[in-house]
């Protein structure tokens, strides 16, 4: 504000933009391009969410991010018996291509980058998105965005799996291959630590499990015959930003260094873009309190600042009312404004890696890296020299779920015993009940409307075309060397439902049931 001119970077090398990229993936970081302000939204019917998307874009959001409801995430239709009470509640309901048309109505898919948070049935939703784009004369090759498609963390933390791990991995490598050849601007996997952290892990575990999953996808894709430099530049990551400010910053910096080194040294990547750990960050939903919800605005601002100081490429800030319900439009706007304040008022975007060289930050970065390396060594040994096999083994033997539960419980006990202060919860309280607030309520009519819409689509479509598309899909699924994507695109174009496609695949792949671990 005083007008003091600043350089793009301070301190000794390696600089931002130089291997191993501890200090950032680009030389001048946010001076050349700010992070994408990508707010996560989805509720009710596709039309409800479409309206919220347009509101976000009108308010200066620079990317879209789609939240699907539980039945959609689990690969089931809105009329499934378990879907009762869940349709459109915690995300948007998408059963068929017809819903996808409403979801992105009047949004130019050739120009907006879209992120879709879905995993088990990711390739089906991706097929719908591709089919929709082509209906609106947008080439699949010009689509840009990200589909989460990270199934490994589902077995470890988020629990939205459908098929067992190995056939799931085949679906993922199929999508990696498909996008590598046909959709050069698309990110086929967003390797996600966010949910691992939300489920209870600590920062080094979040980092280590996420990067290990990333190594596992690399090993699987290479085993499927792909060249590492053909797909690795399009892998991206998704981290949590929690409340321990310097630990989080150290975590982000360590992530870049570890990924770069492993990609180069262990997996032999030649292309520098394969070594870049590019990530989206979301502030920590689990840290938000229902007690005195307004103070969550301050928590979110600090967590977002850590994400920016850590060098995120994209950021979602949580809304202050999310400990109670999905965000209202007002709360979501405040969350977006928080990012804009950080970007345009604080000056932190003027210098790349402003904390680089701080003795504490550098030590923390090294320490988190060291702890992550211990976990990689464990997984490597568990998999007999393969991280992919180590991850499968850790899923089978409950290592991930158990380690996450232990960390979460340790944190909970510290809060209970008052060793760790949570403002508004165990200190500085104002009574037990948050009281009535203006919350986003999902009208039960949404479920009724969606069921009718699904029934109408089923009535309108050509049943024999659906049946033959699903039969073809089953044949392709049974043949591991055939890519599942083309048959999936044809099935969604015939208006087969997500649930029907999943059922056709379950007939070949089976269904995963976890052993309950408390």
């Amino acid at each position: 504000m005083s007008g003091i001119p600043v350089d793009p970077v301070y301190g000794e090398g390696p600089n931002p933009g130089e291997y191993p990229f501890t200090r950032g993936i680009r030389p001048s970081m946010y001076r050349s391009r700010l992070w994408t302000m990508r707010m996560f939204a989805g509720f009710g019917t596709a039309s409800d969410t479409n309206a919220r998307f347009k509101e976000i874009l009108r308010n200066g959001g620079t990317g879209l991010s789609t939240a699907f409801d539980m039945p959609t995430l689990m690969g089931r239709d809105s009329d499934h018996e378990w879907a009762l009470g869940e349709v459109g509640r915690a995300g948007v309901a998408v059963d068929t291509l017809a819903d996808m048309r409403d979801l992105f109505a009047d949004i130019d898919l050739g120009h907006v980058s879209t992120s879709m948070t879905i995993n088990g049935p990711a390739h089906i939703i991706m097929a719908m998105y591709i089919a929709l784009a082509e209906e609106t004369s947008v080439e699949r090759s010009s689509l840009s965005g990200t589909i989460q498609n990270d199934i490994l963390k589902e077995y470890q933390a988020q629990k939205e799996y459908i098929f067992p791990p190995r056939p799931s991995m085949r679906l993922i490598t199929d999508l990696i291959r498909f996008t590598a050849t046909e959709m050069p601007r698309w990110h086929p996997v967003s390797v996600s630590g966010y949910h691992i952290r939300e489920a209870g892990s600590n920062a080094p575990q979040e980092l280590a499990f996420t990067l290990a999953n990333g190594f596992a996808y690399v090993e699987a894709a290479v085993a499927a015959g792909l060249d590492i430099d053909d797909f690795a530049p399009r892998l991206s990551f998704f981290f949590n930003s929690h409340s321990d400010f310097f630990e989080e910053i150290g975590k982000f910096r360590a992530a870049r260094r570890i990924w770069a080194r492993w990609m180069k040294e262990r997996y032999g990547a030649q292309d520098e873009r394969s070594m870049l750990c590019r990530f989206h960050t979301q502030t920590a939903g689990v840290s938000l309190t229902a007690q005195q919800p307004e103070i969550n605005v301050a928590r979110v601002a600090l967590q977002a600042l850590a994400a920016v100081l850590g060098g995120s490429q994209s950021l979602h800030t949580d809304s202050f009312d999310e400990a109670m319900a999905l965000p209202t439009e007002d709360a979501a706007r405040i969350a977006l404004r928080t990012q804009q304040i950080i970007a345009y008022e604080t000056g932190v975007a003027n210098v790349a890696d402003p904390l680089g060289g701080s003795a504490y930050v550098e030590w923390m970065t090294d320490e988190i890296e060291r702890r992550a390396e211990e976990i990689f060594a464990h997984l490597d040994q568990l998999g007999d020299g393969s991280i992919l096999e180590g991850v499968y083994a850790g899923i089978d033997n409950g290592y991930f779920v158990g380690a996450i539960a232990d960390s979460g419980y340790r944190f909970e006990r510290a809060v209970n015993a008052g060793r760790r202060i949570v403002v508004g919860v165990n200190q500085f309280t104002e009574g037990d009940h948050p009281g009535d607030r203006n919350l986003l309520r999902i009208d039960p009519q949404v479920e009724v409307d969606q069921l009718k819409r699904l029934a109408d689509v089923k009535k309108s479509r050509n049943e024999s075309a659906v049946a033959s598309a699903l039969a073809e899909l089953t044949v392709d699924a049974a043949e591991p060397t055939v890519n599942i994507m083309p048959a999936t695109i044809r099935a969604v174009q015939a208006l087969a439902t997500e649930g029907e496609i999943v059922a056709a695949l379950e007939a070949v792949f089976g269904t995963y049931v976890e052993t309950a671990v408390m």
Partner: protein
Amino acid sequence: MSQPPIRIVLAKIGFDGHDRGLRMVARMLRDAGCEVIYLGLRQTTENVVAVVEQEDADAVGLSMHNAQHLTLAPRMVSALRNADLEVPVILGGVIPDQDVAPLMEAGVAVILGPGASAEEVVSAVRGAVASRS
């Protein structure tokens, strides 16, 4: 005179996969000496009723995070009552304040707010079980 330990069935009904809170509560109750029958994810109402019956459980604990509580919690209560099981249903998760009264009217015994301490969880379960017998 020592009481037999409380036996509680903990489950998540339907698709909701947010099991952190439920696993936490399971450990809190176990550490407090309760016998926890932890069913985990993707349970049906019918299965929970069957387990309560087989295991002769004293209480059922459910956790809901996706705004499905107004539909699923009352359904759990009626399914238990229809099977002549008078066990209390204890609900936790993301439950807005304004939903508490209708859920209590529908027969839910206790609603644990977010951030409930281990002490609050254990005493709520003990209270609900004691007031039944």
